[in-house]
Each structure stands twice: as C-alpha cells, then as structure tokens.
C-alpha cells in the first residue's frame, strides 16, 4: 500500500510543476530580478560615532545599487555618510573596497565608487526609471540585505507615492532630513539592512532607494523617489554635495487657513516662520505672508505633500541669486526681492579630544539655527565620555566651548590647535569656558583624574 501512495504523490508532483504555465506576473518578476539583481551591492561600512564622547568605530550593514559603469553605487547617507572604510560585496559574492564620493543628508543619499582595479568580473548597471510615472498599487520588488542577509528579494505594491514626513526627523548623525522630498511607501518587506537598496518596478527599472522601515509595524517601508536620487547623484558626481539656496522661511500647508487669509484654494504658499538673520528676514518678509509667485511663476501648497516642491524651488536656484517674490500680505500684493545664500552644511565636522574626554562639532549656521544658539562662535560639545576628565569636571553635552585656558575658540581649527599644543605641554589641569543655555560657565579639567582611553 505504501508503495502505491508514493507513486501517486510523484505523479501529482510532476504534473503540477511541469504542466503549469508560468504566470505573466512571475515572468516579470524574473525579468526585473535579472535586470537589477546583478547590480545589487551588499555594503559594510565602518562608520564613526562621536555620541559617547569618544570616537567609536562601528560596523554597519546596508545595501546599494550600481548605477554607472565606472562602478558608482548609490546608497543611503545614513549607511555610508560617515564611513571610514567601505567593503562591498557584489552579487557574484566578490568583495571589493569602495570610496565615499559624496552625500546629501537632506535627502539621505550617498554615492560610493568601487575600486575596480583588481576586479575581473563584469560590472552590471541597473537602469533608473521614472518615479513620476509610478502608480499606487503598482507591483514592485525590494532588493537588498535585510538584517545583513545579502541578495534578498521581496515583493509588494506601491502603497502611496507621495508620503510626506515633517523635516524634523533627524538622521542618526543628527542632520534633519526630508525637507526636499516625498517618499514612496511600499508593503514590500523592508528591514534594517535594506537601507540604500533599490525598489524596482516589473520592467526592471529602479524607481526608488529604500531608506526607512518602521519599528513595530508590518510592511511599512519608505523609498526615496528615483527622480530625486537622479538629481542628487548628478550633483554629487559633479561636486561631492548638493549645493542649495537658502532664504530661511518655513512654510505651512494652506488647507484650513484659506478662509482666514481670504485666498482661493491652491493659491500661494503660507510663510509660517522665518529664521532669525536669514535673507527672508533681511528682506522684511513676515510670518503670515503668502507667496503667490516666485520669479513670476505661481506656487501653491495647500497640502503638506506640496511643501517639498516649494522648498526645492528655492533650493534649486544658484546661491546668491535674486528671487522676486510676489507676496500677499493682508489684502495687498507686494513684490519682494530676496537674495539667496548657500544653505551650507547641516552639521559641522566632528573631532575627538580623547585626552580631555569629550567630542566636539564645528558649529555651522544651520546647526546654530536648529540648536537655538545665539551665534556660531565656539564648538559644540557632542559627547562626554563617562568618568573622563570632562565628565568629572562637569562638562555637558550641548555646552558650547568658548575658550581653553582663556584662549578664545572661534571654531574647530582653533580648538584643534589648542588641543595639539596642550597635549604636547601636558598640563595637569585646564580651565575651559563654556556657554550653557545662554550663561557662561567655568569648567576645570583635572587631566590626572579620569583615565583616557589610550592609557588603559
């Protein structure tokens, strides 16, 4: 009896596998896989972390995709932005080193370049699609290394193509992100490690770069639209970063406020907030002004989803350009000229004062604004090592270091100079002056207390 059952099962098995036709969906999945998977890269950067008051190296894992025959890879800034050393594993499992070319924290995009000298294989390049022509419900594949499991493919649909996130969201390295782009939301499984990997349509074109998963949720992944990525990578290949113009305005969706301001629907962008000392403030713009036109082109933001396009409008012009803003204020329309300035770096350079037991960051203008600092003179303390001299002396994260033994510190170069000089002189104690919440404070570091990392 057992013999017969086995035969029967075998018969059923053969008929189902051999006989069933491959569905059109399945064919497309295979096609997309074959077009993009060879260009998929497993990325293992070693990144710098200064948060604990000392430079710590951390091995992280992410994904990326080759988009240029010279070996250029696009990935997330939060994967490789602060990388010291980057190891890439290609789809043929060959390991190569890569170099960081440049990045853009505002859109969370970074570009790497493979060191191809010793590579004998053939570099596959993924084709980039058009994220403006995608549709909700369209089937997609996500490729990458979820939880470090390389060469993984998952499938789903586009859940939303214009998801908005407030630009208060910060990358782990501290930069605010998301002001200039919307996200594609997908239910294709995206986990930690998928970051930087491609979201692919069924014709095998990359339509987004997967960058965010959601904690405690199922099938909520977010990708940066590829049209944003194309623009950003182009700028990075040209100059290592994305130059943006800045005028210092924060807009708010007009929905629900049209009645109050007496405007028609889909007319104008409401200025809700103006940064102190910004070109907008200098041009006498005010909160409550409604921008009807920029350089005679109409703009509007009724919904939050329209805000990134407005910010991009301004960001895209060459820094230093004069913008003509047509403003509705009360019932009158006025014309204002605002000269843009470069946005500059969101975060300054990090530095570790290991003998003193803390880390600092150079203060950029954008940091001054987002940390509500009165000026950008000094360096910001970003971490204090536990039981180090600075910790015992009472230095706090968030203090702004203004002087070391009464020598003023205007920026990071001053501090590095003093640090190097004093490390040679090797004094027992140091007097620091910091600014804490607007008040000056004296701090004494006893360099004989608190053992530095290097002495252990």
């Amino acid at each position, binding site marked *: 009896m057992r013999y017969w059952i086995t035969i029967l099962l075998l018969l059923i098995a053969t008929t189902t596998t051999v006989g069933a036709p491959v569905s059109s969906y399945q064919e497309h999945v295979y096609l997309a896989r074959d077009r993009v998977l060879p260009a998929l890269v497993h990325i293992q950067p070693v990144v710098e972390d200064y948060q604990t008051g000392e430079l710590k190296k951390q091995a992280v894992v992410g994904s990326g995709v080759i988009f240029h025959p010279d070996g250029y890879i696009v990935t997330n800034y939060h994967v490789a932005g602060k990388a010291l050393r980057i190891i890439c594993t290609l789809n043929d499992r060959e390991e190569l080193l890569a170099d960081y070319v440049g990045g853009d924290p505002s859109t969370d995009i970074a570009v790497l370049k493979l060191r191809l000298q010793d590579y004998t294989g053939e570099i596959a390049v993924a084709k980039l699609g058009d994220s403006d022509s995608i549709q909700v419900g369209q089937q997609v594949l996500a490729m990458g290394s979820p939880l470090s499991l390389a060469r993984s493919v998952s499938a789903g649909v586009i859940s939303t193509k214009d998801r908005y996130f407030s630009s208060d969201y910060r990358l782990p390295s501290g930069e605010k992100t998301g002001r200039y782009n919307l996200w594609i939301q997908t239910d294709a499984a995206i986990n930690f490690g998928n970051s930087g990997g491609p979201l692919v349509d069924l014709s095998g074109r990359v339509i987004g770069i997967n960058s965010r998963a959601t904690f405690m949720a199922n099938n909520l992944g977010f990708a940066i639209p590829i049209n944003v990525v194309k623009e950003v990578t182009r700028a990075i290949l040209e100059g290592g970063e994305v130059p943006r113009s800045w005028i210092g305005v924060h807009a708010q969706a007009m929905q629900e406020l049209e009645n*109050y301001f007496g405007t028609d629907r889909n007319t104008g962008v409401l200025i809700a*907030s103006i940064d102190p000392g910004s070109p907008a403030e200098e041009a006498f713009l005010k*909160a409550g002004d409604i921008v009807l036109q920029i350089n005679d082109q109409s703009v509007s933001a009724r919904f939050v989803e329209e805000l990134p396009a407005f910010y991009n409008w301004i960001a895209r012009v060459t820094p230093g350009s004069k913008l003509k803003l047509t403003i509705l204020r009360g019932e009158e329309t006025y014309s204002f000229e605002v000269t843009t300035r470069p946005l500059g770096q969101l975060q300054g350079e990090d530095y570790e004062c290991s003998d003193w037991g803390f880390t600092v960051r150079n203060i950029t203008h954008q940091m001054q604004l987002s940390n*509500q600092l009165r000026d950008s003179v000094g360096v910001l303390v970003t971490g204090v090592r536990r039981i180090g001299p600075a910790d015992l002396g*009472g230095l706090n994260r968030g203090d702004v270091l203004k002087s070391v033994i009464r020598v003023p510190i205007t920026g990071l170069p001053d501090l590095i100079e003093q640090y190097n000089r004093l490390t040679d002189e090797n004094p027992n104690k140091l007097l620091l002056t910091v600014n804490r919440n607007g008040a*000056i404070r004296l701090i*004494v570091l006893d360099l004989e207390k608190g053992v530095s990392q290097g002495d252990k």
Partner: protein
Amino acid sequence: MAVVVLLSVLSRGVVAQSFEFDQLYNQICDYTVTVKIQVELSFGTQTSEHEERLMGTIVSPEGLIVFDGSFLIEESPFVPSAGFSFRTTPGRIEVITLAGDKYDAEFVGVDRYTGFGFAKIYGANIEFKPVEFIPVKKFEVGDWFATYALLPEFVDPPLAADIGMVSNLITAPEDFPLTVGFNALEFASVLYNEELKAVGLLGELTDPGRSGGNGSGMMESFGQMEMPLLGVITAERLEVLIANPPRRGKVDRSWLGITMQSLTVDIAEFLGLDDPGGIIVNEVMPGSPAANAGLQIGDIIHAVDGVRVEVDRDDQLAVFQRRVSAMGIGTTAELTVIRPVGEQLDTLRLLTLLKAAPMAASDADRFEYEPFEMTARNLVFSDFLNYNVEQNSLEGVVVSELKPGGLANISGFRLGDVIQRINDQMVIGVDDFSSSLTAIESERPSEVVFFVWRFGKTLFINVRTDWP
C-alpha cells in the same frame, strides 16, 4: 494613661522617659484639628481630584492653621523643559476640632523650604487658643520629645502618641536637630519636651544638592527618594513663618538675578585666589538687583553683609540661594565682590536692593477657556530658560493644560506652545487671551486662527469651532 518608656542609650545607661500624656492630650485639644483638603491635581493633559486628610495645628488666635503642605509644592523636578508643570490646586478646606466643631478654611500658601502648609479659618467669630512655641536655647543629643499622629478615619479617638529623640545636631548645610523615632507621617506635627512645652514642628532637612543650580532658585526639588532626615523646625523659624505666612501667587522670596556656580578649589587656583568658597557670577539678568548693583559676569561674590560665602561645591549653591531668598524683598544687601581685571583682582563693595524673585510658572495668572478645553498662563522667568531664549524676547501666553480630545488638542496645540495672536489680536498676557476669546465667542465664528511660537519656530493653528 501615663506612658513610661525604657530605653538603653549608650552614654546615659538605662534611662526612663516619662511624659504626662493625659495632661498633654488635654492641652492639645484646644488647637489640634483634622484638616480635610480637596485637591485637584493636574499634569498637562491629566487632571484628577481627591481629598487629603491631615492633622493640623492652630497657630494664631485668628485661626491660622499649619499642616503638612509638602504635597502642594508645585515645582516639579521631572519636567523642567516641557513648558508646563505639575500643579495642585487646593479646593474646599474643612477643619474639624477634636471636640467635633467644624469650620471652613481658605488656603494661604506653602513654605517651599519647610513644606509647611497654611490655611486660615473663616466665618468663626471666636478667638482660638493657639499653640505656643517655646524657643529652646540648646538642643542636645538624647533630648526626648513627644508628638501625636493622626490615625485613619475609621478609628476613634483619632490621635496616637509617639516619642522620639534628638539623634544628632547637624551643622551643615545648616543647623538642624535631627531626630530618631518619628516617622514621615508625623511631618508637621508639634513636638513637646518633657515639660510638655511645644518646641517646634517635625520637619525635614532637604538636600541642597538637589537644586537645579540656576540663579532663580526655582527649580529646586523637594522630592526625596531616600530616607527622610526628620528633625526639629525650631520655634524661631516658625515665629517668622507664622507672622508672615507664605501666600500662593505672591512671591515673598528675594533674589539677586544671577546664574551662578561655586568657586571651587580648582577654579580658585586658576583665578589666583588662595581661598576657595564664593559665588561666581555667570549671567546677570537684565533689570535684576544684581544688574542694578553693577555686578558683572565673572565677578565672585565673596561675602554678603560681611559674612563670608563659603560655598565651594555646586551642590551647596542652594544654601546661598536660600540665604538670599530669606533676606527679604526690599532689604539692602552689601556684597563683597572680587573682580578679576586682567591679571589683577579688585575687591569691591556693592550695595543692592533685593527685589522679589520671579514668579513660578504654577503661580502665574491663568485662564481656562472651556469651549476649547485649554488653559493658558502668563510667561514667567523660567519659561525663557526652558525655551533657551533671552529673557522677555517673547510675548504671549503659554498653553499649560490641554484636555485630551478637546478642540485645542485635536486642532494641533501642544503643551508649551506660546500663543502670540488670536485672529488678528495680539496676545501679551492672559487678560488679552481671555478677552479676545470672550469677544470672539460672542460672534460664534466657524473657526479661530491662532499664531503660535513653538520652540524657535512659528505656525498657525486653526481651531474649527463647535459652539454649543
């Protein structure tokens, strides 16, 4: 009912303490009362009400009562930066004598240093016989005291006797006769010596190191997680409090108006001073007594009224703050100040007229606008510190309470928002807030637009109204 207690004390061998408790009980009947206080507790978006039942003591012929008011102290150490605070609002107060007479009383205030609360009986046309405190020249370890504790409500009679002993004479951070044998439930109870004289109230020594260390002295925490240090709040201290009890909403503390740190041994060495101990001035508030006296950033306050400031650790700053705050509004203080001028140290004598310390957030005038289920209050000194902006650089009212699901809440308001404009009306204080909204309400518009400052940025908030 005389109780004899036998106890072995090392230095004295076996001693017997004897208190005439019958006589004492008769004596306290005149002024010992049960106080029932209805309290509303709110914490931003949450509000609850409950009743506290405490023992109280009549301390003046007019019916002033002292009780354990520590639960009514409002500055919360937990949320210094949220722009709102934990707030307790005493409601109806009922006072019941041991004889069963009932009186209504109104809340007066709580002394932030001792935690003693004060209420005053009203509508009773009689002269009360208050407790009389006798100053004790010198407390000694081994002095015995008796007190009474209030028993739960289902028990009768309501009081139980207890005894305790001076266990240590603490001298730092201040003089304080520490006791052993009493418990925290007896806080603010009268202590009697063996002659049955009232020598003080059971109080607590708080750790000055729990101070936030800012110049305002407003972020001091009185919450203690460890074993309380109970002891005698003496007749001398009580006399001052009873003569001039703290009033809620009225600032009776004086201040200098500086942000400070202590002159530690290390810093003294760097500044070329051989003698540590003093107050380093880190910031001078505009318009403050310190500013008027010409105090500058970097100055070191070496002595006040000729008395040396011996603060050489930051956890002792509160001792200095308390000293200044107790000097009193309108008092002239003489500050001996060391001012580093280049390599040189100048010594100056500055006179300053002490002014009232800034009002605490919980004391600020507030207005609850019921249709939107939100409460806003005036901006106070500490708000500017919390918001990390210069003093008086903002105008408006602070959103201090929001009911969950209320109109303001669902329209996007957050606690700590500073309302600067309602429709086109400027809002500078709660009077503007209440009058604007009252005027708007009469027109019953379908929406009200607020212009709000929120941590360095501004925005508009539209409240879609829902008039009844």
